[in-house]
């Protein structure tokens, strides 16, 4: 995972609440066994007028010019501004991979669905929770100012832009992991002895968890 310290980029505003992961990356693309190749199909049913299929050339698709991300002003956007409960629904991590591959490094919203939030942290996509009043303010600014950019400083836990500044909260550990690009599994395996110790205690206490159909004491 690439470290995230700070990022400055164009903000795209997606003014919908409850954006679910079925919208972020529709099911037909989940057949892939790879972690890559999802960027062209981010928000597929919204971005294009024709039905998307795996392997379909994005250059031959019919673009939905009414969809915000297709507006020229948002070309190259790397910060997504969204509404409440972003990423609800399916646990598909492909949603995070698709957002990243499209070019997003950060999503700002008043609230996120739990699983999506977690998946983002695991991949170095920074989910920034900002109070609704700040998000409202940002939607106003971005709406009026084409090409508006923000700088998201994870160390300082700040979102800064022309005429805008807000502090955000994030727990210390995910913050450290994002900033250092740490291997999550490696960090847990550092506790391997504790896991083994727990496991043998657990096995004594609850042997039925380990013994399939067992009847021994």
């Amino acid at each position, binding site marked *: 995972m690439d470290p995230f310290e700070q990022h400055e980029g164009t903000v795209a505003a997606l003014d*919908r609440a*409850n954006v*679910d992961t*079925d*919208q972020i990356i*529709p*099911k*037909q693309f*989940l*057949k*892939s*066994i*790879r*972690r890559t190749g999802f960027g062209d199909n981010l928000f597929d*049913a919204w971005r294009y007028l024709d*039905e*998307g299929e795996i392997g379909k050339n994005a250059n031959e698709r019919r673009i939905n010019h009414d969809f915000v991300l297709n507006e020229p002003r948002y070309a190259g956007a790397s910060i997504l501004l969204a*509404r*409440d*409960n972003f990423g609800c*629904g*399916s*646990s*598909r*991590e*492909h949603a*995070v991979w698709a957002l990243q591959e499209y070019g997003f490094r950060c999503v700002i919203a008043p*609230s996120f*669905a*739990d*699983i999506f939030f977690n*998946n983002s942290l*695991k*991949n170095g996509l920074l989910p920034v929770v900002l109070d609704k009043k700040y998000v409202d303010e940002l939607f106003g600014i971005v709406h009026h100012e084409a090409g508006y950019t923000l700088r998201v400083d994870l160390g300082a836990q700040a979102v800064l832009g022309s005429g805008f500044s807000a502090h955000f909260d994030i*727990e*210390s*550990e995910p913050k450290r992991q994002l900033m250092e690009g740490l*291997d*999550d*599994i490696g960090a*847990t*395996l550092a*506790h391997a002895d*504790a*896991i083994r110790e*727990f*496991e043998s205690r*657990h096995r004594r*206490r*609850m*042997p*039925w*968890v380990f*013994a*399939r*159909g*067992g*009847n*021994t*004491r």
Partner: protein
Amino acid sequence: MAGKTVYDKIWDAHVVAVRDDGMTILYVDRHLLHEVTSPQAFEGLALAGRSPWRRDANLATPDHNVPTTNRAHGVDGIDDPVAKEQVLVLDDNCKRYGIEQFAMTDRRQGIVHVIGPEQGATLPGMTIVCGDSHTSTHGAFAALAHGIGTSEVEHVLATQCLVQRKSRNMRIEVDGELPFGTTAKDMILNIIGRIGTAGATGHAIEYAGSAVRALSMEARMTLCNMSIEAGARAGLVAVDDATLNYVHGRPFAPRGAMWDRAEDYWRTLVSDADANFDAEIGLDATGIVPQVTWGTSPELVLGIDEDVPAPDDFDDPAKRELCERALAYMDLEPGTPIASVPVDRVFIGSCTNGRIEDLRAAATVLEGRRVAGSVTQAMAVPGSGLVKEQAEAEGLDAIFRSAGFEWRDPGCSMCLAMNDDRLYPGERSAATSNRNFEGRQGHQGRTHLVSPAMAAAAAVAGYFTDVRELA
């Protein structure tokens, strides 16, 4: 000191370590895998030169992608080469790492959340995870069960643990008797309609109250299944006799002396009288009528006797906008009685409603009746091979077939339409599944979520209708 909730008890029994930063390393007892969210996790494991921490904690089955017809040839019968590759990769990974799999031709194959409980691989007090958000289903057994992403699938494979922060406790107490013709599906849709799709975000829900106690285990699974549609990763029900009666004698469940020991422990999996809940919601079951979702979020739900709302019915501007968008997508006019809306396809199945009791409930409505001529397709998709066998032994397949239903092989099918079972643009379904998001059941398809009995009633009438009037 305040007592503990069921969630607290299971959590406490699985804490390996609390890190300096306050995050908990939580031990995972059971890890369920399927073909869609595991390939990248196995790849990551291999790239890092790691192997599964405890092979026998894992149980795999292909379910999301498998066709529900032409199953005699197993994987070779999958026409879609991309889907086929994914199922083959699961086969390979399970062989390579020695993970038990109910492969496509195994009679026990089925939807991962149906087979866990069916096999007794889901036991009370367990921590259970799977790369699928409907893992909450297993909470019906007083297990702590929730969905995880693919990175976490890899993490669990490699370490048998997850790094977690504890959720808050929420109790949803449903008292009174569910009226005739209403089910656990109507109960959970009604709850989601009240609290919204983010209503329980950050919480583990405990469903309690006399109406919940009165539910069968299968109905409790339906209830817990849709916790995620209320924003909660986990939902659970405390242990009682129904829990233990269901588990007893299942292949993975303990027997003999070990059962007795397990039972002693499992009986403690009820919330203490003085346990503290961060949020409590009360609901009267007697007021619940059969539910039908009308919009593109599970919270947009109506009683069968109600009319499609107008944007102005909502005070919150965000809800107003959601309503407007949903009306347009669903092609519905405000004020339309939901009980007059015609359906094109009917889907009975999924991890929400693909178990034997669900098929029985639908068959009861269908017996001696026919699917309306205006309905393009009606399909029944059992949740597992064993559910299918049981249904056939009871003659339910004959009832479905003679009513004009297609009788399919097990899988997730039209719940998420990764295989060929799907809606086509503009079509409208009555579906017993769990999500009515835009395009969920097919590009530009329109989904209405209902109970199995209500889906059967819609199939017969050709439009949504009150199943209580058909009985």
